[in-house]
């Protein structure tokens, strides 16, 4: 390219050069963090729709941070963290995802901080699930355990004080609905899920939600109290008739109720023991319920004179809705898990968790492993098996899966019965 022939481009280049020089003096950037990965899921079973093979997806992750007003005592930070997932097969396009775990402005001054934009935060102490972790939407496409969360728009202010504890206040202006697998994909529901969500609030997904949390440390005891008022992150799946599809008019429609959600969490360190508890009380138009997780964690350091650490977890999950609890809820279950940390150069670790219903014949096993192949390459492994009682069947007359009607017989996890899978992921960090 010659500049004489293209004065417009030359001017543009000069202007942008001057601008970037100016910006460079005012803005400080961290280095870009970029990672590219691929994951494959192998399903040995046929699945609900008998059309599901292996699943490939590609992941791109970028992250950077900038600071402006660097001359002042309190610079302003611009945080960007984007995650992009592209499924290889169009049948799997519900797994495509663009998310921003961080896309925000933030400022910190002494004990205070505020954040404006998209962000992710974590509340809770338990290993199996986190009932009190209410702010961010669950990303079920990433993993069935519900621990992966999506970014959430928020205006947040926090105050941390040694004596008075940590205080968090959040206004959540926009709601992100949960992504469900479509009927061509895996870990799908037995009926199509309507793309149009229903909301109790007239403001739909623009209801202004409010959340706050207070937490405090009393020596080795840490406690938290949280409150949320707004759109439930977990939808009720309602059976509706969709006349646009006469061949299969029965569909599920996610309905997001307005809820009040009060949470309590505590962790007490007693030597090698960690005692943990999470409890929530939730009210909505359809009534109220409470749920809890209580458990212990114990770590054997350097087992058998090796450098390995072995941590044991035992937790009990309870939901007082019992048989009325929605499918997928662990309402009366135990989790026993062990995590082996090898403390080696490859940061290898292996977790095995077994969930077992205290009454019903439902067992879920999860294995998670990670291994660093080189400074730039990491390997991850996830294995899920579901042994959740009687196998799936459709009622030949109504075509309604029996599980939806009769969770008391089939249990709450029956839909997962044929969905065992193994996931391998490789990530390259630039």
């Amino acid at each position, binding site marked *: 390219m010659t500049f004489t022939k293209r004065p417009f481009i030359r001017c543009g280049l000069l202007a942008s050069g001057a601008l970037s020089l100016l910006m460079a003096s005012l803005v400080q950037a*961290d280095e870009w*963090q970029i*990672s590219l990965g691929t994951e494959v899921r192998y399903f040995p079973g046929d699945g609900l729709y008998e059309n599901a093979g292996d699943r490939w997806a590609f992941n791109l992750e970028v*992250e950077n*941070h900038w*600071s402006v007003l660097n001359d002042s005592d309190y*610079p302003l*930070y611009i*945080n960007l963290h984007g995650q992009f997932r592209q499924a290889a097969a169009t049948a799997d396009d519900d797994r495509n995802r663009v998310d921003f*775990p961080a896309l925000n402005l*933030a400022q*910190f001054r*002494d*004990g205070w*901080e505020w954040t404006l934009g998209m962000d*992710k*935060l*974590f509340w*809770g*102490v338990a290993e199996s699930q986190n009932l009190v972790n209410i702010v961010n939407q669950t990303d079920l496409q990433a993993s069935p355990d519900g*621990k*992966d*969360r999506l970014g959430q728009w928020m205006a947040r202010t*926090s105050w*941390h004080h040694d004596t008075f504890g*940590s205080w968090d206040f959040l206004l959540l202006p926009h709601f992100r609905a949960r992504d469900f697998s479509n009927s061509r994909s895996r870990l799908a529901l037995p009926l199509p899920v309507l793309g149009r969500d229903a909301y109790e609030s007239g403001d739909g997904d623009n209801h202004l939600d409010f959340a706050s949390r207070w937490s405090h*440390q009393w020596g*080795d005891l*840490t406690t938290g109290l949280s409150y949320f008022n707004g759109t439930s992150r977990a939808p009720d799946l309602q059976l509706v008739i969709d006349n646009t599809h006469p061949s299969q008019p029965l569909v599920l429609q996610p309905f997001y109720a307005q809820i009040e959600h009060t949470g309590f969490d505590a*962790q007490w*360190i007693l*030597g*090698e*023991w*960690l005692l943990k508890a999470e409890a929530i009380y939730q009210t909505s138009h359809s009534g109220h319920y409470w749920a809890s997780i209580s458990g212990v964690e114990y*770590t054997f*350091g*350097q087992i058998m004179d090796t*450098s390995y*650490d072995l941590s044991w977890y035992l937790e009990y999950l309870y939901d007082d809705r019992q048989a009325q609890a929605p499918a997928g809820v662990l309402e009366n279950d135990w989790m026993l898990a062990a995590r082996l940390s090898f*403390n*080696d*150069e*490859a*940061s290898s670790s292996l977790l095995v968790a077994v969930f077992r219903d205290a009454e019903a014949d439902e067992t879920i096993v999860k294995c998670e492993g990670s291994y*660093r192949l080189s*400074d*730039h390459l*990491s390997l991850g492994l996830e294995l899920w098996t579901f042994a959740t009682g009687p196998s799936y069947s459709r009622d030949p007359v109504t075509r309604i899966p029996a599980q939806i009607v009769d969770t008391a017989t089939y249990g709450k996890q029956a839909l997962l019965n044929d969905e065992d899978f193994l996931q391998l992921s490789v*990530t390259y*960090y*630039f």
Partner: protein
Amino acid sequence: MSRLTNNRQNPLHTFLNRSAAMLGILLLCCGTAITANADTDKGLAISQEADKRNSGFVDFRAELTMRIVNTQGGESLRKLDIKTLEGVEEGDKTITIFTFPKDIRGSGFLTHTKKTTNDDQWLYLPSIKRVKKISSKNKRSPFFGSEFAFEDLSSQEVEKYTYHYLNDEVVDGLDSYVIQRTPNDPESAYSKLIVWMDKEHLQIRKIDYYDRKEALLKTLTASDYTLYEDKFWRASNLHMVNHQNKKQTFLVWENYRFNTGLKDSDLEQPALMRPLTGG
């Protein structure tokens, strides 16, 4: 090693034999007690003086490169950013953030060292933004695959050990004190540490770590001491060799900055959650 062991035990043995011969059992007991106290006092005094000379740094920031070498000569690197705020009433507060390898970039530890009780320690996992308060009983565990245990890298408060001065020796051509440190915490991985400290600047030149079975486990050597702020000596190179598994770890400290204006709020949990911002 055997030479050092003999050096440590000889004076005591000689004394015991002589005392027993001359004064009998009763006086022997008093005698050892008095000698032990005198050596304990001297060991403590030297350690307190070393601590005093190092106090008043207010805060520092530095970058740490950790090179782990296994028995086959294979190497792996870790890079960490360290911020430490000096404690007055209690021990120092330190934030350690991984910057390399990239898959654990942003993970970090916050430690509030306590002088006599267990340290407070938090772990931060950036992928789920979770801060977890962890038991500091895991101090024996290796620090991310290195030959350093958590307790080797935490702030070495004077109150954490009982001291016993052993003798003088020349190390690296420097006239040095040899002091035995016995961890007060029964959870420590060590039965004792033998510390060589040069007499002029009270810099630690070498430490032998003995495991719970009294066998020599590791040796740390510190070199390339640099003077910062006209007052504070810091070793640029630390080398830990594990005699039992033959693995080695090299630490290189770089870009030391003192008195950087760190505030208390920079070393609390919220700061742990913004490791790559906040300067």
